[in-house]
């Protein structure tokens, strides 16, 4: 299967109409080089894909890098198991909420994976040699009869089939009362943060029995609760800065140098509410579901139910850019509330040069916005229209005006096919899109280094 370039990496079992709940992908993340791609699912499993390197001869052309290969399964392991909190009589789901890779320091790779309560550090290492020629044991490991040994030999390392070993190195437990929604590795390479609904903790990667609480928004009286933390991330370059988003649509930039407890923000980013668009659901749709720093560290990208917004760290009065992801849903909020879709949490990502942003939608659609032109494009992650090597065609949702062939009506959108999780390769135009239990990887072959359009 690896040799055949045409063989698809996506599941083509058309006979399987149902989706096992446990197979639903819940997070996708590239490592810092983009060679590895990890996915976590609802069943607590992590699958790591590795990019194959093509032979140099055929692909060394102008503008194209050496390895433009496919991603194949590298390793699979069970990260979290279903757990039980005996004190509260609550089940703890094994669903992987987030995966974050550590920067690579040696031959091994490290990643953090978290469910609702516990964060784990995993070491992923390769073994492609094994010692052979033991004196006291035979090839199968059985002890030899000493009397048969007539000479001594030095065991030598012989190459074997590649084995990928994944071992848990740290388990960071009992740090959170509420459900963990984010983890973020600090640029200092030593610490990371984990955020739940009301608190953010900072951990040292080497210390599991202790963490520092750096944000606590729990009110003295829970009846006074008005907002929760929805996402948090460290600044890509400044190890003292982090941002967290709230359910009220605000962003708070915090500087850990100012005080031990960062309850008081350094900067508050908030857009004044438009009174004309107020509805029953204004609070729900303004809740920020994801926040991401740009690679440059200058901008923030946020996603709420209907829009994606770019904020300039130097301006807290409002976003500098607002992109309508699926404005046609604004009039359907009531039915989306009834079928629970209004609570869906979409992620958003930057491309490597921070010139394009991407986020998901319904009906297996996802949207890309070019920041320079302000134009958006709708693409589809669906196996029927995505044969290997086929060019992704743009789609359109018809919501009035001239209807073109191929347009999809708002009422025929499939709200069960939601693109919530996605990742963009750190340096190339390769994107990974999770569509329920399928993973789609799209690559820009023509111009891998330039914008995807």
């Amino acid at each position: 299967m690896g040799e055949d370039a045409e063989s698809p990496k996506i599941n083509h079992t058309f006979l399987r109409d149902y989706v096992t709940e446990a197979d639903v992908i819940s997070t996708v993340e590239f490592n810092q080089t983009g060679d590895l791609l990890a996915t976590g699912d609802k069943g607590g499993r992590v699958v790591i894909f590795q990019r194959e390197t093509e032979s140099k001869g055929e692909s060394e052309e102008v503008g194209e890098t050496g390895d433009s290969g496919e991603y194949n399964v590298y390793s699979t392991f069970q990260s979290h198991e279903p757990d039980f909190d005996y004190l509260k009589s609550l089940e703890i789901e094994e669903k992987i909420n987030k995966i974050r890779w550590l920067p690579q320091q040696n031959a091994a790779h490290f990643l953090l994976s978290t469910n609702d309560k516990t964060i784990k550090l995993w070491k992923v290492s390769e073994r492609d040699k094994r010692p052979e020629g033991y004196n006291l044991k035979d090839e199968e490991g059985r002890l030899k009869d000493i009397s048969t040994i007539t000479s001594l030999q030095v065991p030598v390392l012989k190459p074997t089939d590649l084995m990928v070993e994944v071992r848990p190195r740290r388990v960071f437990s009992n740090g959170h009362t509420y459900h963990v929604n984010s983890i973020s590795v600090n640029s200092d390479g030593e610490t990371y943060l984990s955020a739940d609904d009301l608190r953010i903790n900072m951990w040292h990667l080497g210390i599991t029995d202790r963490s520092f609480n750096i944000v606590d928004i729990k009110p003295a009286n829970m009846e006074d609760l008005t907002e929760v933390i929805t996402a948090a991330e460290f600044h890509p370059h400044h190890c003292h800065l982090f941002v967290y988003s709230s359910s009220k649509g605000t962003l708070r930039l915090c500087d850990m140098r100012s005080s031990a407890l960062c309850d008081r923000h350094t900067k508050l980013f908030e857009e004044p509410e438009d009174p004309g668009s107020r509805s029953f659901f204004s609070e729900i749709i303004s809740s920020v579901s994801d926040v991401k720093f740009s690679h440059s560290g200058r901008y923030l990208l946020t996603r709420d139910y209907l829009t994606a917004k770019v904020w300039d760290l130097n301006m807290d009065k409002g976003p500098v850019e607002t992109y309508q992801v699926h404005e046609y849903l604004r009039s359907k909020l009531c039915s989306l509330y009834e079928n629970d879709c209004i609570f869906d949490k979409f992620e958003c990502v930057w491309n490597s040069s921070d010139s394009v942003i991407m986020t998901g939608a319904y009906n297996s659609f996802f949207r890309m916005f070019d920041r320079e032109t302000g134009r958006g494009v709708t693409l589809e992650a669906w196996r029927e229209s995505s044969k290997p090597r086929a060019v992704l065609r743009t789609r359109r949702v018809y919501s009035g005006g001239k209807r073109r062939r191929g347009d999809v009506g708002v009422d025929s959108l499939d709200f069960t096919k939601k693109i919530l999780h996605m990742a963009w390769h750190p340096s190339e135009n390769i994107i990974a899109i999770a569509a329920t239990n399928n993973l789609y990887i799209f690559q820009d072959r023509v111009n891998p280094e330039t914008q995807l359009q």
Partner: protein
Amino acid sequence: MGGALSHDADVMEVTAEAKRIMVVALGKLYSSRTQRGGLRLHRSLLLTMVMKSARDMYHAAQETEWAAAEEQQPPTEEPTGAQIELQEGKPLTSPGNEVENSPTMLRRDADNKENMSPPRPTQHSRKRRGKAAVEPDFLPCKKAKLEQKNVPQQLILSTVLLCEYMNCSSEVGAPPAPMPVQRAIAAC
């Protein structure tokens, strides 16, 4: 007259929608208790907020006659005060039905006491409907009583919300309103 009727229909629509939203929110809150993984705080908070704003909207829609009168006047507290005052002793002058169905008649200043008499039947009917339509059976009935006690506060706030709903060019925006209401409701 036609304007008044369509306005009335809008109010009915808002009331029905608010009621449906509240019921759905309650259903979701109750079913989330048995969900695997425990109560999701974020979701529960959002549902509670939706329920509260639907509830406010519902009560606000029920005070349509008063809001219509106040639309003309900037100070919202005054007419409310007058209404409370009048609860005591004013006899039911103009037939309650007529007043409810034609709010145009009520667009007068607060001094006009005939205008203000409907509070009694309206309030009475609001309380009745509140129990049967809004509150499901399993909720303790002290909630209805508490609403009545908080009437002055709620009236002020609900008037504000309705004004805003009807797109009056009022300076009072959405943000200030929910906060005090939440405290009132949290006390329930």
